[in-house]
């Protein structure tokens, strides 16, 4: 009996070893060998992203990633440096005098990755399937404005709008949804939104060649690409959710570069920069990190309280201590480097005395022996809502809590995971919300347009601003600025809208965020592209 049982223990151990090796052996062997051969024979760059690439459909959103959609699918026009609209799949275009008709002359040398022709018919087919789901894309105002699509001849496509809409070309540069899949990619129902794609066929410089969900995706250079071909043969994108793990993988040379916004902590960026072993870069400001005050709530509906909160926020301390000086101080809702956003305003510089005076004037007075200000016997407590998955928001929220406490304001921190956070934000159940603008090419016009609508795909700003007496007037100006054909009037209106938002102090812009790039010294060509979400994989090279 005893011998039998000791054998059982031994056999159990042997079984564990065999089973573990067996499972390991059969599951990923092929993949690993494939990757190894890829590394041996061709130029490969590897980087990582926090999420899986999804089903790689340019006509849908979550769980698709912007960067991978941009690798495979292309737009009619391209958002170039400084916001210049450049020819892309359309080599030229004509706009009617009334601004309602756009005729695009398509390139004749473009093919999809399955060798099928890119022409006006397929452009129309893509537009039409997108327009069939108009409601789902209503955050893109252009889609609401499209009246008709026509293929005038094999390489000429015409877009007719309900109104003259000035950001038409700019919105055509968006990574989604107005990009093109080949005929063979369409599902039997022809509805790419509801039924997805049969396969990922685009005109872009990359083709998805291997994919393991939640692990990695391999993109191979599209040898038939019409434009400048990428310098490397393959790009491997690994899914790594943790920023610190990403840094360690980079240090171990398992990643060639780190790229993006918020992909590693500011500490890690500084650490890698200070090590001197790697190249580091920061992009020009892309979007603005900002606080948004809810103008429907008792305290924050008071202009003086919002002004006081602006004056009492020490932006420089946040930038120095949380961002290590990496981000630039923001005084306006949008970075002034964008079109129409450079406005002349008096910034709310850090001034505690002024903040205290404003709070006193608003009736929130200090009470002897009590830590927080009161008005009519009620304590000044503000609920600060932020996204628990964003470490930067958490750090800033804690900083704000400490700083405002000195002023007699009790900040109640509410951290929620992403989905719940947005639900609460859209419902307006907060006093202060941590948010950010959408970066180019969405800023400023798409972001401002979202203020005017309670669309689910818009922003929480609509509800937050409802308490402003000028809300209706602001909305009308925003709608007008999008439709005017007069450049002078447009500039004037933008200045007016942005100045009003600044004067009403509904936002507290903190800093202009940037993309970061960290790469090994054998990597070159890693320059930032105009759209924040695009990774410069066409220009990148490896020695």
């Amino acid at each position, binding site marked *: 009996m005893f011998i039998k049982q000791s054998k059982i223990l031994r056999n159990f151990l042997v079984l564990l070893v065999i089973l573990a090796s067996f499972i390991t052996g059969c599951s990923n062997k092929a993949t690993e060998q494939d*990757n190894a051969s890829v590394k041996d024979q061709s130029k490969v760059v590897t980087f990582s992203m926090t999420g899986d690439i999804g089903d790689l459909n340019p006509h849908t959103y979550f769980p698709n990633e912007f960067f991978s959609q941009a690798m495979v699918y292309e737009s009619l026009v391209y958002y170039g440096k400084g916001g210049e609209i450049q020819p892309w799949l359309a080599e030229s275009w004509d706009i009617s005098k009334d601004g309602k008709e756009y005729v695009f002359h398509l390139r004749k040398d473009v093919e999809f990755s399955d060798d099928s022709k890119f022409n006006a018919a397929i452009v129309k087919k893509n537009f039409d399937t997108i327009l069939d789901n108009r409601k789902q894309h209503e955050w893109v105002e252009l889609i609401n404005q499209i009246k008709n699509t026509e293929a005038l001849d094999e390489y000429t496509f015409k877009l007719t709008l309900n109104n003259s809409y000035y950001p038409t070309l700019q919105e055509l540069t968006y990574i989604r949804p107005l990009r093109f899949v080949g005929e063979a990619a369409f599902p039997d129902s022809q509805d790419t939104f509801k039924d997805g794609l049969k396969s990922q066929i685009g005109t872009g410089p990359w083709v998805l060649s291997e994919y393991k969900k939640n692990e990695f995706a391999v993109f191979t250079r599209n040898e038939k690409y019409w434009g400048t071909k990428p310098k490397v043969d393959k790009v491997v994108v690994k899914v790594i*959710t943790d920023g610190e793990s990403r840094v360690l993988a980079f240090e171990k040379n398992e990643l060639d570069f780190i790229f993006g916004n918020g992909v590693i902590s500011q500490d890690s960026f500084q650490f890698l920069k200070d090590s001197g072993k790697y190249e580091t870069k920061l992009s020009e400001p892309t979007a603005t990190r900002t606080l948004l005050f809810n103008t429907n709530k008792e305290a924050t509906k008071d202009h003086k309280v919002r002004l006081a909160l602006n004056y009492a926020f020490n932006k420089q301390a946040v930038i120095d201590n949380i961002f290590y000086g990496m981000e630039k101080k923001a005084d306006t809702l949008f970075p002034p480097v964008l079109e129409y956003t450079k406005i002349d305003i008096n910034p709310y510089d850090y001034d505690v005395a002024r903040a205290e005076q404003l709070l006193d004037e608003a009736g929130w007075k200090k009470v002897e022996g009590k830590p927080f200000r009161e008005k009519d016997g009620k304590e000044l407590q503000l609920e600060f809502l932020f996204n628990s998955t964003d470490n930067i928001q958490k750090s800033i929220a804690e900083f704000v809590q400490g700083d405002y406490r000195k002023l007699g304001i009790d900040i109640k921190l509410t951290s929620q995971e992403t989905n719940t956070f947005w639900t609460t934000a859209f419902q307006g159940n907060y006093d202060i919300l941590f948010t950010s603008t959408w970066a180019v090419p969405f800023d400023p016009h798409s972001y401002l347009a979202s203020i005017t609508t309670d669309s689910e795909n818009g922003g929480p700003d609509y509800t937050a601003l409802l308490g402003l007496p000028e809300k209706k007037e602001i909305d009308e100006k925003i709608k007008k600025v999008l439709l005017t054909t007069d450049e002078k009037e447009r500039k004037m209106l933008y200045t007016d809208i942005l100045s009003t938002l600044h004067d009403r102090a509904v936002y507290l812009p903190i800093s202009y965020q940037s993309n970061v790039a960290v790469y090994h010294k054998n990597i070159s060509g890693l320059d930032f592209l105009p759209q924040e979400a695009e990774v410069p994989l066409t220009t990148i090279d490896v020695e």
Partner: protein
Amino acid sequence: MSWFIVKRLASLVPILLGISIITFILLHLIPGDPAVAYLRLSNIPPTDVAVAELRLKLGLDNPLHIQYFEWLGKVIQLDLGMSYVSKNTVWDEILLHLIPTIQLTMTALFFIVVISLPIGVISAIYKGKWIDQFSRIIAYVSVSMPTFWFGFLVIFFLSVKLDLFPVLGRGTLAHLILPSLTLAFGYIGTYIRLLRASMLENLNEPFVVYAKARGLRQRQIISRHVLKKSILPVVTGLGMSFGNMLGGAVIVETIFAWPGMGQLFVSSILNQDYPMIQGCVLFMSVIFVICNLLVDVTYSFLDPRIRLEGGK
């Protein structure tokens, strides 16, 4: 023996039924509307009309008990529904993530056994000696060091500095070592102490004195008599730990970019992917209960008294 197993299997039915009720009710108690979550994840604006239509389609307007029986009927046919995010069946998603998790857990279990058993036995035999003190330190470090910290330390030293293992991802056997060692590390201390205590208790039993009187050598007494009896609580513990590790390796999976069940579970919760959450909870519960059953069966095999009492 087979009667014992049949009886234990029969006792699983009410347990699984209870789990299914708790899983179903808990998910209906948490804030949020599955119809709204589905629409959001499908990028469809959750207008009142859309929500009402979907609630009707998903049967969410029915009374709770009818919803439960409909759901249970499907579960019995192994239909756990469709993920709101990936639009794949919940089964496909679970199977996709289960294989990496089983790899990780089996290897971790192997590490736990080969590290904690010898140390536990030696520290009991040499009680109070330096080797016992050393094992005590290992045990304290193991149970008190946070998993994420240990994970980053092994990556930093064994991977980045000494270049012995890859940092992240799946692939070769080498990819498996660090994550499974990290997962195992937190359990090793517990099993060292558990086996040591059990061994010390049994070393004072009359059968040991009798064995000595029979002139058996110390080595024989330990390996053939004491260890056999002392291993029982460890077997129970390993069964429970196996279940825990299958579903609770979230931190290790995140650090090592290991696409297992823990990551699937957490992302489902974050995305409010209701069918996926329900499927994961139910599946993990079943696994846990099965592990429990296997432990009982193994236990009865190692200690016939249990089998005989159970078979009465």
